[in-house]
């Protein structure tokens, strides 16, 4: 009898041990993900904070296991994730120092909106051997001028933005004879204008450039520039402006007839929809730097992000939010692929191998890590035209361009590809 009770007791103890040790083994160390995004300065409102919000929403819902398929597993492969959010403000030099401080504290870094920061961080990530996923910056130079093992970019480059709007414009207005531009005078504005100018000249040889206005970044006031554009006689005006500059251009240009006299293209105009609404005149051609926001495909994942974000922050997610969610989901996909069926957490090398050339689903659709030796994403793109309906600004006449139509093939630089005729 005694023997039996001892047996029962020990059995009970074992069961209890299993029951109580199970949470102990599940409550393993969370995977720490460093999130670097602009939390102060002029880019915080349009990009930085919407990206941070999307990161927090995504992390929380991943940990709760409420993200739709194929991301139903909790956290990364069952292990919860914990975000360490830092501010990207202050310029590349400061960011390199911040990055060096961040690296020992986290397992993976996801971040960077400014191309200048991305160009500065990439070699340091390589030096420190830390998996770093760039989520938003647009310059194609990162993987065209160098090759990295530890650096990835899950968002498409800026090249496809301007190639897509040029294709869209010429499909609808084949008779345009001239164009002009107003872009911010720094890398982003200059590169965007160069890509658009080259794409237009390739697609319609002989087309005339009337003027290229390059106001100072954050100038905010464009009275003289708008006069120059109005007086230029150009059929089309291209702008890759963002944030307060873009809003200022619309507020100052619309009452002066800039949008009536010219076909205006805002290649990165999507975040302004939430800010300006119907103040953006009808008929403006708008891009979202990928199939994001109003251009997102009608999938469970895009519905999940749109409704989850809207419920929590009372505004729709913009392209920066989409790209942040996409980056986190991309890393999750790679982590789980690397982990496979095993129980052990994969090491960084395995995650890197899994992320190279990976194809995964994001809220904006399929993402292929097809360029830069499998480190740079390409995606389909979409362009549309604005139209006010019932007091709301909607995108109509939306056209989708397959990823290989608007991105260079692997191994070819964007500029050379555009100039050589945008061949597939």
């Amino acid at each position, binding site marked *: 009898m005694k023997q039996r009770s001892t047996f029962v007791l020990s059995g009970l103890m074992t069961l209890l041990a299993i029951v109580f040790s199970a949470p102990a083994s599940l409550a393993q160390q969370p995977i720490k993900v460093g999130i670097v995004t602009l939390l102060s300065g002029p880019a915080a409102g349009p990009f930085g*904070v919407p990206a941070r919000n999307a990161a927090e929403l995504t992390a929380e819902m991943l940990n709760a296991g409420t993200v739709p398929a194929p991301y139903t597993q909790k956290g990364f492969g069952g292990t919860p994730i914990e975000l360490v959010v830092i501010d990207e403000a202050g310029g590349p030099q400061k960011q390199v120092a911040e990055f060096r401080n961040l690296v020992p504290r986290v397992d993976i870094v996801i971040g960077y909106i400014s191309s200048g920061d991305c160009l500065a961080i990439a070699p340091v990530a390589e030096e420190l051997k830390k998996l770093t996923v760039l989520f938003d910056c647009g310059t194609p130079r990162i993987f065209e001028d160098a090759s990295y093992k530890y650096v990835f970019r899950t968002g498409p480059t800026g090249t496809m933005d301007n190639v897509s709007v040029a294709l869209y414009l010429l499909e609808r207005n084949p008779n345009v004879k001239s164009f002009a531009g107003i872009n911010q005078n720094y890398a982003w504005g200059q590169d965007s204008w160069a890509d658009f100018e080259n794409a237009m000249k390739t697609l319609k040889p002989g087309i005339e450039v009337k003027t290229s206005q390059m*106001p100072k970044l954050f100038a*905010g006031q464009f009275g*003289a520039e708008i006069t120059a554009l109005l*007086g230029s006689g150009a059929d089309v005006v291209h702008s890759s402006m963002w944030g*307060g500059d873009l809003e200022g251009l619309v*507020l*100052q240009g619309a009452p002066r007839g800039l949008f009536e006299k010219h076909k205006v293209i805002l290649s990165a105009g999507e975040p302004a929809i939430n800010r300006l609404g119907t103040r953006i005149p009808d008929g403006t051609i708008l891009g979202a730097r990928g199939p994001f926001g109003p251009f997102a495909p009608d999938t469970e994942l895009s519905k999940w992000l749109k409704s989850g974000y809207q419920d929590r922050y009372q505004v729709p997610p913009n392209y920066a939010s989409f790209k942040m969610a996409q980056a986190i989901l991309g890393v999750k996909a790679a982590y789980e692929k690397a982990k496979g069926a095993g129980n052990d957490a994969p090491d960084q090398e395995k995650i890197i191998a899994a992320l190279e050339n990976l194809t995964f689903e994001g809220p904006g659709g399929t993402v292929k890590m097809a360029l830069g030796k499998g480190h740079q994403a390409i995606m389909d793109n979409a362009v549309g035209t604005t139209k006010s309906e019932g007091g709301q600004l909607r995108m109509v006449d939306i056209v989708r361009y397959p990823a290989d139509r608007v991105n260079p093939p692997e191994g070819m630089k964007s500029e050379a590809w555009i100039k050589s005729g945008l061949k597939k």
Partner: protein
Amino acid sequence: MNALLPIAFDGVAYASWLFLVSAGLTLIYGVMRILNVAHGSLYALGAYAACSLAGAWLANQLPAAGSFAMLLLASVLVGCIAGTLLERGLLQWMYGRDEVVLVLITYAVFLIMEDVIKVIWGVDSLLLPEPYALPGSFSLGGLPYPVYNLLLIGLALVTGLALAWVLNRTRQGKMLLAVIHDREMSMAVGINVSRVYLATFVVGATLAALGGAFTAPTVAVTPGIGVEVIVLAFAVVVIGGLGSLGGAALGALLVGLVRSATVHYWPEAELFSIYAVMAIVLIARPKGLFAAQEARKI
């Protein structure tokens, strides 16, 4: 030739704005020898306060024309409250220190105010386009212009003339000029220098806020707008000669016209044009166009 009229108008409109934002800076420097970097934050505060006040006014369906009064009210409120707090709470303890120390102190204030603005108004841009569209537009050289630009030019003219009149034709103005010339002597003859300093700082702060409040309807009011302004205002003030009101007016006009012409004829050089003017003026006159002659003190 047809383009000359629009170029001149754009130049004058931009110059009016530049003058509005630099008049306060040069006044404060002229009297107090403080290169007030926080001028940019006062400009930003003016713009944000204008958005809040005029926005609330318009949201309550009150007559739209009254929003202009709200812009003025916002500037006066910011100037009086923030100006007094800054001068009485901080700067009055720092007088007599090296000019560089004061630049650093006001720079610190500038950085703190950037975050204060972020805490109060958030990081999203504020828009107040109604007053800009309200007065309609007119045509010049075949191109449409907003009447609001004329209003800004008028405001700059009135502000400049009023300042000149107060300085040269009133008792208070003469006392101020006396303080500029010799602080100790003014105290000796019974001028309350501390009060003159406070009044000057409040007027300077109000001018900064006025610039911000009347710019708000034309732009998206975003974090960091003060940074752009302080750099430009500093360039204008240096061109005109630190502390000279007439210099600020001429500097603003020069920069406005050169910038406008550059935008039309050589847009790539726009960024460079303002500093080119500054460099050329400083090579010819190292203290600016109208720097006050300084008596050497032993």
